[in-house]
Every structure is written in structure tokens, then in C-alpha cells.
């Protein structure tokens, strides 16, 4: 007699009977143990995270036989025509005979890192042969040994690199990374709703703008502007936990009071367009691109009077890419002054290529004095580079910044 009535369906009945006959025998226990052990072994592989001791080694270069290249980059970051083609990239493909896939895969340094770090640790191909990421992330990647050393002989035009960017602390002599564009984080506003514009971070906290303010999810840019507004020199090393905590407090207060509506990466453009936000902390060049898309000068941009942040995004070749020489060809191409000028005229970021200003005079003379592309001393004096954080600071500050955004 079975204690429970079996279902009437004969197939299921048979299965249950079979399961009963299978009850624990010595063999089945062993089989089961084997399976669990295998599962555990598998699980152990996936949680190891690559380990810190052994750095991966660079993949063998197959550029001679493999004529392809994938370039991962941020949105609004290369010249684009009305059909969605990239004119300079097309020119490069025709000239070099390479087939380049341009992949708008980066929205945020952190999320991109999280996506590819396990493959990098194993030295595998991450599906991109050249990636543009921000200074501090490049610094981390170089430290972890996830970046291939560049052969400067393949990049003769690197001599055009502007002197101020030639020896950053994370990559003396530019052995691993080469700047793509630099830019500012500053203030943007909707010209129809705020005809007087914005000049300071304090004006973002105007009660009239309650719930209509956006800030960047890039911790260094948002916190950089807030700290500058408190009179802290973000590029010097004399500030620490206390100063950061004071700025976080302001940030926390503006978020919980509902003054700040959104904390976003590149997608802040949507909020500005649909007018959910009327004022925001944004990246310099994007605003010109958005105005261009709309066909009107709807949004204004300025560095706050207390200063904005200055950052650079850099080309780097991931450790697992077997197409390094192809990548170097691409970098060399974009270091021609006339090509750099063509890109800059579209993306409106600061080009690191010397001679681009002269080349710009031929393409678009009205842009030569554009402070977003060719900033003069006066503008640069208002732009500050966020100092390098230690790993412990990075973890702590990022966690504090995130928990404000999560409302925790």
C-alpha cells in the first residue's frame, strides 16, 4: 500500500515506480557523489576569478593573415554621416584593406570592465581588438597586466601627440595606451527653459529646478564637480576621506530631497531631449552632437566657475587580441592631423593630436576658436584632473557613490 495515491496517468505512474526502484543503493550514491563533485569542480573554476598572481600573456599576433579589426567605443564618439556611416573609418578601410567593425559597446567604464574582466584574466579574446577607456580604468588594466605593449615603430604619427599627455603617471612614455579624445565634464542646460544659463554648481540646487537635474554616473565627474564647488583642488593629493565625505553629503541631500532626478551614463541625452531634466552635469562634446541631431541650439554648455573635470579616453589593445598590428595601424591613421581634425569637428572633444588645429582651419575655420575642441590657457585653467585613487579608496568611494544612487 502506498501512503499517497498515485496519479492516474500511466506514464507518470511508471516514472514514479521507476524512481522508487532507484532508491539509494551503493552504486547510485557513488554516481550522485561523482556528479556533485563535478559540479563543485565546475563551480570552483567559475569563482576563482583568474587569481592575482599570474598575469595573462599576450596573444600571438595574426594580423598578417587576419585582415579584420573590432573597435569598441562610446556613443557620440566618432564622425558619422546622415546614413550612419563613419567617413574617416571608411577612408581607413579603403586605404589599409582592413575590415573594421565599429562597436558602440561602452556606456560606462565600470560596467564594461565587469563584462570583460574574466576573459582578460584568462588572456582570451574579448571580441574587441582596440578599446577606448578612461585614464583611471586604463591605469587599473595596465596594473593588472591586461593590456598589450604597443610597438611605437608601427605608430610613427604618435610623434604628433600633444606634450602634456605624453607621460601620464599610469603609463610613462605611452607604452600601453594612446589618447583618443579628451573632454570636460561641466554643466548643460535647456536654453528655452533656462535662458540665463548656468554658471555654478550651486545653481543646480535652485528650488525651481527640483526634480529636473541630472548628474553623471561616472563618480569622478559628478563628485569632481561637487568637490570643486566646495573649494577642493581635486588634482592635488591633499584631500582624502573627509573631503570626499563632505561632498557625498551634499550629493546625498540633493538626491534624497528629490532635487537630483537621475544619475546616468551616456543615456542622459534621452532625459535632456524629453525634458525630464532641464539642467545636468554632462560631457562637453555630447551637447554639440545632440544640438546637431536636433538641428537647433537647444542646449548650452559651460564649465562652472569653480571648475570642471578634465579626462582622457585612451586606445588600448586587450591582452587576448591577436590583431595588435591592425590596431596600431588604426591608431596611426587617427594620429594624422587632418583625420584628427575631421573627427574633432564632429565629436567636439579635445583632440590630443598636434597640428589638428592647423588642419581644422581648412575643414571648418569657425571651429578653430571653439573652446571645447581647442581650449586655450584660460579654459584649461578651469579644468582639473581627478587625482589617482588607491585601490582601497576606489572601492570605498565607488560604494558610497553607488549607495546614494540606490537610495540605500
Amino acid at each position, binding site marked *: 500500500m502506498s501512503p499517497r495515491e498515485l496519479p*492516474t*496517468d*500511466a*506514464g*507518470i*505512474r*511508471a*516514472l514514479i*515506480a*521507476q524512481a522508487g526502484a532507484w532508491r539509494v543503493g551503493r552504486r547510485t550514491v557513488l554516481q550522485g557523489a561523482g*556528479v556533485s563533485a563535478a*559540479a*563543485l569542480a*565546475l*563551480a*570552483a573554476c*567559475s*569563482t576563482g*576569478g*583568474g*587569481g*592575482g598572481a599570474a598575469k595573462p600573456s599576450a596573444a600571438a599576433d595574426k594580423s598578417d593573415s587576419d585582415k579584420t579589426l573590432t573597435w569598441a567605443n562610446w556613443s557620440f564618439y566618432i564622425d558619422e554621416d546622415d546614413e550612419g556611416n563613419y567617413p574617416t573609418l571608411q577612408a581607413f578601410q579603403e586605404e589599409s584593406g582592413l575590415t573594421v567593425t565599429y562597436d558602440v559597446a561602452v556606456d*560606462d567604464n*565600470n*560596467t564594461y*570592465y*565587469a*563584462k570583460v*574582466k574574466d576573459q582578460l584574466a584568462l588572456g582570451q579574446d574579448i571580441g574587441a581588438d582596440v578599446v577606448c577607456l578612461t585614464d583611471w580604468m586604463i591605469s*587599473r588594466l595596465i*596594473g*593588472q597586466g591586461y593590456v598589450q605593449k604597443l610597438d611605437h615603430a608601427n605608430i610613427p604619427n604618435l610623434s604628433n601627440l600633444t606634450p602634456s599627455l605624453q607621460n601620464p603617471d599610469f603609463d610613462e612614455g605611452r607604452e600601453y595606451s594612446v589618447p583618443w579624445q579628451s573632454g570636460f565634464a561641466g554643466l548643460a542646460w535647456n536654453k528655452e527653459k533656462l535662458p540665463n544659463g548656468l554658471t555654478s554648481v550651486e545653481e543646480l540646487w535652485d528650488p525651481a529646478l*527640483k*526634480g529636473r537635474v541630472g548628474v553623471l*554616473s561616472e563618480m569622478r565627474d559628478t563628485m569632481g564637480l561637487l568637490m570643486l564647488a566646495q573649494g577642493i583642488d581635486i588634482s592635488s593629493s591633499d584631500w582624502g576621506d573627509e573631503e570626499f565625505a563632505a561632498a557625498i553629503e551634499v550629493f546625498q541631500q540633493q*538626491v*534624497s530631497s*528629490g532635487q*537630483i*532626478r*537621475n*544619475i*546616468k551614463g551616456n*543615456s542622459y541625452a*534621452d532625459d535632456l531631449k*524629453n*525634458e*525630464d531634466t532641464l539642467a545636468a552635469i554632462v560631457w562637453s562634446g555630447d551637447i554639440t552632437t545632440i544640438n546637431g541631431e536636433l538641428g537647433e541650439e537647444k542646449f548650452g554648455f559651460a564649465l562652472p566657475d569653480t571648475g570642471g573635470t578634465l579626462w582622457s579616453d585612451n586606445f588600448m589593445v586587450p591582452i587576448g587580441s591577436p590583431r595588435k598590428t591592425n590596431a596600431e595601424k588604426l591608431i596611426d591613421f587617427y594620429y594624422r592631423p587632418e583625420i584628427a581634425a575631421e573627427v574633432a569637428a564632429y565629436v567636439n572633444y579635445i583632440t590630443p593630436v598636434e597640428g589638428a588645429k592647423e588642419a581644422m582651419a581648412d575643414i571648418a575655420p569657425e571651429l578653430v576658436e571653439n573652446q571645447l575642441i581647442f581650449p586655450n590657457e584660460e579654459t584649461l585653467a578651469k579644468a582639473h584632473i581627478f587625482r589617482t585613487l588607491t*585601490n582601497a579608496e*576606489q*572601492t570605498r568611494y*565607488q*560604494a558610497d557613490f*553607488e*549607495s*546614494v*544612487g*540606490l*537610495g*540605500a
Partner: protein
Amino acid sequence: MALTAFAGSPAATGSSGVRRGGRIALLLLIPGIAYLLLFFLAPLISLVMTSLQSPSETVFGQYDFTFNWANYLQVVGQYSEQILRSFLYAVLATVFALLFSYPLAYFIGVTMRRWPLVQSLLLILVVAPLFISFLLRTLAWKQILSDEGFVVTTLKALSLLGPQDHITGTGIAVVFGLTYNFIPFMCLPLYTTLERLDLRVVEASRDLYATPFTTFRTVILPLSMPGIVSGTLLTFIPAAGDYVNASSQFLGGTSSTMIGNVIQSNFLVQLNYPAAAALSILLMATILVLVGFYVRRSGTEDLL
């Protein structure tokens, strides 16, 4: 739907074929069991182990297994508000989706029974939104509900919203998004049960002088319980873990974050894998307990 699929299976297999059939059935089960071991059990073990790790002292971004169960206490302490909010939003969305879908499913499955063509047309309309990615549909709602959009400006003109109020970035928008996105998953199981509702029973109830409400309460509702249970499960479980609607990229804001957003941030931005894993396991365990309790209470154990 999957839960009700067994109810009508034929009982025609001859008893002489049972032994051999059983062996074949077992053979057929091997791929399924292998799949579960590989894609469910292994990741689950990995997740549990990750949740007990603590950060390495020396290497940035690396975690070592130290049986650090304090991770669980820490995430509960830090994110209890988001955890409770997730379940509140999921319950609200499930209730709203049920209130919306029941009359709709009844209309399609019972009222329209005499016109099968209309029935299938209406069903297509219910399923049609699923042909478009839900990300795009949610983004579309973000546009519709935006500050300068039609809905908000109208509500403001009617003084139903204050001059500084908005909809996107609030809990209302998130619950709305959840409800909207899960309506088809509620509607279809309800339809499949109501479609088979024996109208003669309803007729009998009327013959016995039951009011329409009593008929609904004592006859139609109990008979449609299987549909309600599977519909609410299909809505509640994914809604509790949803991170798209509540994300600030879509309908949510800083005051309406759900547990899914917390996990996403810990995993992808803060690189705090143990916290993310501990939260995932807590979410899974809580859902299991709640669902088990619910299914027991609603008296439909034979479904599972």
C-alpha cells in the same frame, strides 16, 4: 500554462508497455537532467560559494572563499528597504495585473465563446506586444510619461499633479511598468482555464437562485483558481527580481530602486560579488518560501 498542461493528458498507455516505456522515458529524461545539473545546480553552487567570499587583502577586485556568512547580515542591514520594496511592488503589480486581466480573460474565454474568430483575434492582441522587445516598450512608456509628455501636462492642467510633480522616476511609474509588462503572462493562463469553464455549472447556480456575485464567488472563481495561481506566479516571481522597470534608465529613480538594481550595481559597478550573490540567494529563498506558502494556502498542491 505549463502547470495546467498535465490536467488533460490521456490515460491510454497500456499496462504491458509500462516497463519498456518507463525505460525510454528515463532515457529521454537524461538531457533534461544533464541540463539542470549543468545550468542550474552548478551555477547555484557557484553562487552560494561566491556569497561566502571576502575581499582579498592584497589583490584588488579579487575575492577569496572564507565562509564569510556575515555578508548576508550586512546586505540585509544595508538594503532591507530595497528588499521590502521589491516584494511590495511585485505584490502590487500582481494584484493590478490580476484585476485587469481577469475581466479581459473572462470576456475572451467565456463571453466571446460563440465567435471563435473574434476570440483568436483578441488573443493575438493580448500577445501582440510580446513581438516587440519589452525594453523598447518600456522606453516608449518613459517617453509617454515624461515631464513634457501628454500625460503629465494633461494631469498638471487638471491640477491633479502639482507644478513640480512628475511620474517617471517614482514608484508609481515602476509599479505601472511592472503591471503593464506582465499582463500577457497573467492573461494567458487565466484564459486557458476560463476557456474550459463549464457553463452548465454556472447555469445550475443561477437555477438555484444564486445572485451573480454568489455565482462568481462560489462557482466561477474556485473553478478558475488554477489559472489565477499560475498567472500570479508567472507575474510575481519575475516581477520581484525585475531590474529593468525600476532602473533609472527606464521608469525608476533613486527612491524606487528594487533588489534587482542593487544586485546589478553590486555586481557590475561596485564589483562586490559576494554582496550581489548573497542578495540573489536571499531573493531566491524568499520567493521560494512565499510561493510555497501561497500554493499551499490556495489549495492547489496537485498542480505542482
